[in-house]
């Protein structure tokens, strides 16, 4: 199965859930459709959704929930 790596579109803090007390958007193994929300990036207190650009399955996250990420840094692998 080919793997596509999705880079972070922005620098900031990566969140895998919409709020601290809510479940993650996607678990490893979950299927993805283009436009699905995978997480949020917080830049200077502004939140932007990270969405899938391809269909597939979440293979791995390179950045943990609530960790810092730079623009272009690999965010997750998608099995297409």
């Amino acid at each position, binding site marked *: 199965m080919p793997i596509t790596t999705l880079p972070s579109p*922005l*620098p*900031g*803090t990566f969140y895998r859930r919409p709020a601290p007390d809510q479940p993650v958007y996607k678990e490893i193994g979950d299927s993805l459709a283009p436009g699905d929300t995978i997480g949020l990036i*917080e*830049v*200077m*207190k*502004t939140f932007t959704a990270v969405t899938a650009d391809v269909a597939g399955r979440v293979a791995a996250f390179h950045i943990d929930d*609530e*960790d*810092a990420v730079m623009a272009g840094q690999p965010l997750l692998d998608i099995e297409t």
Partner: protein
Amino acid sequence: MAIGTIMIANRGEIAVRIIRAARKLGCRTVQVYSAADRDMLAVRLADQAVEIGPAKPSKSYLNIEAVLRAAQQTGADAIHPGYGFLAENPAFAAAVEADGRIFIGPQAATIRMMGDKAAARAAAIRAGVPVVPGSDGVVNPAEALAVAARIGFPIMIKAAAGGGGRGIRIAQTPDELATLFPQAGAEARAAFGDDSLYLERFVGRARHIEVQVLGDGHAAVHLFERECSLQRRRQKVWEEAPASALPPPVRSALCASAVRLAEACQYRGAGTLEYLYDDESGGFFFIEMNTRIQVEHPVTEMITGIDLVEEMIRIAAGERLRLTQHDIVCRGHAIEVRINAEDAARQFAPSPGTVSGLVVPGGFGVRFDSFLYAGYTVPPFYDSLLGKLIVWDATREGALARMRGALDELKVEGIATTIPMHTILSKDPAVVAGQVHTRWLEAWLETAELQAAASKGEVA
């Protein structure tokens, strides 16, 4: 000076501001920083710097244990919290004192009382300070309907533990009040862990005016007022001192009311009492007290000639107020604009990144409080304030003219900033005439003129 070493538990421009005041007093400075802030200006300026954790604020600047450990390691006698982060956290103030160090700010009990908006309102009423008509403290749904019937609609439902606009609802009718009351309660419980609510009459069109006070725990003085009506999403973007719209008798009554409340709670340090002012009736109403140094404090310094951060440190060291009310004189007019890393032409999109070039304006009556230097990379993890451009002149008209010139000189290259927006604002007829209110800026930002002009500024 009874304080040998001051540790700064903050970052950005305010950390630089505090280091400058500490240096003037001959204090040694210790700067804490997160892993994302190794290159920041305050780290370079301080006598010593200590890394306290990763970029995420909860693991660094908001981590009380990590901050206290840094103070113990470096032998800091006192900690200045700046604004935001731990500045208004009573548990932090208490922990610093329990550790045998000085918290440069009010007592923990004062911070706690003013952090409870319903308790602050009650304290204001006791001190004879006018408040927006509303409930006497926290109410249940049945009491809310009775209070609303007495003071009239529209009415605001507010969270006692509130802040940042959360837990606030505006009801137009009794039916809406019954529906929105539980919603506001649920939001307040989720945000603050406390669903206590109180009511205030909704004031639709008002100016935001605030009074600066200094207290030593015994006496208090005011340093006149600031007007901060130009706001976007409840964030101030442009501040002035004094508030030109106030008739002199109203100014005297307003400032005297602030001193009464500060003395009634034996206030220690620098604080700000926020009010709404209604041009038509000339009425002013206390809304809340901020128990910290504020972003916009320089405009007060410019009109009074008093270094507020120095006074905070002296008071924390145990000195009595050095100034009587009679010593404090308001001279001329000052304006501050906040330079944020935001692109006003693209819905204020955040714009962190590397500052490739920097030209700072200067000359008489111009001040730039910032943490930028050429080559510095602004990290994406914190708020977007890059600095404040402050001008002074004998008249408001002169200050506006000086601001236009200074904005023209100021160049921050490599990232988008709010400089183009301020350039346009500084020439706007309503701003020039001072005919603004707290909801004026958001309406103004809808205009196409800004979009076109701001994009042009971006290219330049």
